């Protein structure tokens, strides 16, 4: 009966209750949706960083990350890669040479990190080959419908990933670097570097493809050539590697595999993507805390509104509460009734807010939020201007718990105020 009375009491002052519920609903939509946007952004960033930049795990010579000396290789990299590939959970492995170089066009020059890769193996680890150009964009832009024509256009005008059969020195650069060097497909670029014997060497590479990802810094500083070409220029053995990049089946296995590999190869440095790009690790670790913090602040603000409303409720019903206590309703029941009313008031708005926020997240999660007009800013910090909000079920469950907790906390002061009343005095009050 207490449940029924509390629920009916909520609707005694319909307008006031609706205002509180609408406030809670709006607060919930705002909090959950913005959390979903942040979460979606962060997850996208992490996914894209793993997909295009770092892969899941990298293995280096222990000193390589501090000092990128040509000689800091991982030893017998072929055998190492084969061993790692056989570990359950490992999807693919790529051996890379990684050399800091100067790259020049006829217009200008700049320093970049040149990655010497095996294109076939690299496709299994990162997806730069998918980022060269979007064929759908080409088709839409030029009105092409024939796949052959699109393919031919991509090869001749937009570029392609390394042609396996080609013996020419090809280079794949980022769009940002291409703009800086004023380079285009088939533009010749000169690469200068230091060889293993300390002398300077150089070579000419022709731009085979221009990749475009959401991280303009990466685009501007990382270029790819075939491993044999880089080995030839530096004097390194093609069997050696500065970096073993590993892609795993499930991101959740990364920490486990890092431990496993660290134990297996104690002389090498094994790092997960969180260690390679610490800012990403920090984002994923702290974002959840921040999102809950945002929700707690919103709920705290709503909580004060709820306290105010419930105080009004108690003050308006002094006489009735006095009567209830007079006829035998004990303090625990009076407290429970006020608490239930507060919970109903809060949870109704909370549930409506969560449902509406869920629908908004579902819609924008499928269609995305296009912030193309801020693309340069987003890409400068590695984020995709097309945002896909997303949030997990545990977040919803925690929010439900937080709303109930807020309601309970918010009900304490009004309920205590009610309990302090003397029934005889309360009955005398004229309202």
């Amino acid at each position, binding site marked *: *009966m207490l449940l029924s*009375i509390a629920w*009916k*009491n909520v*609707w*005694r002052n319909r307008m006031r209750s609706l205002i509180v519920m609408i406030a809670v609903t709006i607060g919930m939509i705002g909090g959950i949706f913005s959390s979903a946007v942040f979460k979606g952004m962060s997850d996208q960033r992490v996914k894209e960083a793993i997909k295009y930049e770092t892969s899941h795990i990298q293995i280096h010579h222990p000193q390589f990350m501090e000092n990128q000396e040509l000689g800091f290789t991982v030893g017998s990299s072929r055998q190492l890669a084969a061993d790692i590939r056989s570990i359950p959970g490992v999807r693919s492995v790529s051996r890379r040479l990684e050399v800091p170089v100067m790259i020049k066009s006829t217009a200008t020059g700049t320093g970049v990190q040149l990655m010497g890769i095996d294109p076939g193996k690299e496709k299994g680890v990162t997806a730069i080959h998918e980022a060269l150009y979007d064929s759908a964009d080409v088709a839409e832009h030029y009105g092409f419908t024939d796949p052959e024509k699109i393919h031919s256009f991509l090869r001749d005008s937009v570029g392609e990933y390394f042609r396996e059969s080609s013996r020419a020195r090809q280079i794949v650069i980022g769009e940002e670097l291409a703009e800086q060097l004023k380079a285009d497909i088939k533009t010749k670029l000169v690469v200068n570097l230091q060889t293993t014997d300390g002398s300077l060497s150089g070579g000419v590479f022709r731009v085979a493809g221009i990749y475009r990802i959401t991280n303009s810094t990466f685009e501007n500083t990382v270029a790819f050539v075939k491993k044999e070409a880089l080995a030839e220029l530096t004097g390194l053995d093609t069997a050696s590697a500065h970096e073993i990049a590993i892609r795993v089946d499930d991101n959740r296995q990364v920490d486990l595999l890092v431990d496993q590999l660290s134990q297996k190869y104690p002389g090498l440095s094994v790092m997960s993507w969180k260690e390679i790009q610490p800012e990403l690790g920090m984002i994923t670790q702290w974002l959840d805390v921040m999102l809950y913090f945002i929700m707690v602040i919103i709920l705290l603000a709503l909580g004060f509104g709820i306290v105010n409303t419930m105080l009004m409720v108690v003050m308006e019903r002094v*006489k*009735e509460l006095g*009567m*209830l*206590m*007079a*006829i*035998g*309703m*004990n*303090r625990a*029941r009076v407290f429970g009734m006020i608490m239930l009313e507060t919970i109903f008031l809060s949870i109704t708005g909370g549930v409506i807010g969560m449902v509406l926020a869920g629908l908004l997240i579902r819609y924008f999660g499928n269609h995305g939020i296009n912030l193309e007009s801020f693309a340069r800013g987003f890409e400068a910090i590695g984020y995709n201007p097309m945002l896909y909000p997303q949030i997990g079920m545990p977040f919803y469950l925690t929010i439900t718990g937080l709303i109930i907790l807020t309601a309970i906390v918010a009900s304490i002061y009004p309920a205590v105020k009610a309990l302090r009343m*003397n*029934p*005889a005095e309360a*009955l*005398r009050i004229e309202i």
Partner: protein
Amino acid sequence: MKILTLNNVHKIYNESEVQVHAVNSVSLGFDKGEFAAIVGPSGSGKTTLLNMIGGLDQPTEGEIIVNSTNIGDLKPSKLIDFRMYNIGFVFQAYNLIPVLTARENVEFIMHLQGWPKQRREARSRELLEAVGLGDRMDSRPSKMSGGQQQRVAVARALASKPRFVLADEPTANLDSQATENLLDIMERLNREEEVTFIFSTHDNRVVKKAHRVITIEDGQVETDELQKDR
């Protein structure tokens, strides 16, 4: 054997450094089934006396004994239970729970006492029919007249079969017809349910119906007379 005894009860309020002796050395006894009116002008101490009898207020001095229990000795939590099981209240302003129907209002105390649903329903129907509201059981207080609401309040006060019912100016807000009606019902239920009724009033129509009239003035009992035999 008295079901209610007041021994030398005093109530003193300290208001702005002035002591107000609201009830002054009152000693009374009530038998089972009495229909007694406490009469007096406004401020004479009627309500204070009823509040103390009902355990809503504590005497400054003296004792109130209900069936050999001195209610002044009860802890607050026990006192609430004591009120729930022993005393029915009828208030001047009806004080029904506005979100509940007449039947639910009557069942409320039985619910607090943990009565099973069937018994609650049977008892509430019996009482609402007894007060002439058998056809308004599912009406909310806002849809009822003052007289009807006060009859629901009487049914509620009797619901859990208390030892006595305290009614503070029960007819103050009612017209003469409704007052007559209510008094007849209270008198009949007093007889049928064998429950002691003690009510405060300054309404002569009520006084005429009472079997025993206790006149109180300045907190002291002036007269205590039997008008009718029970």
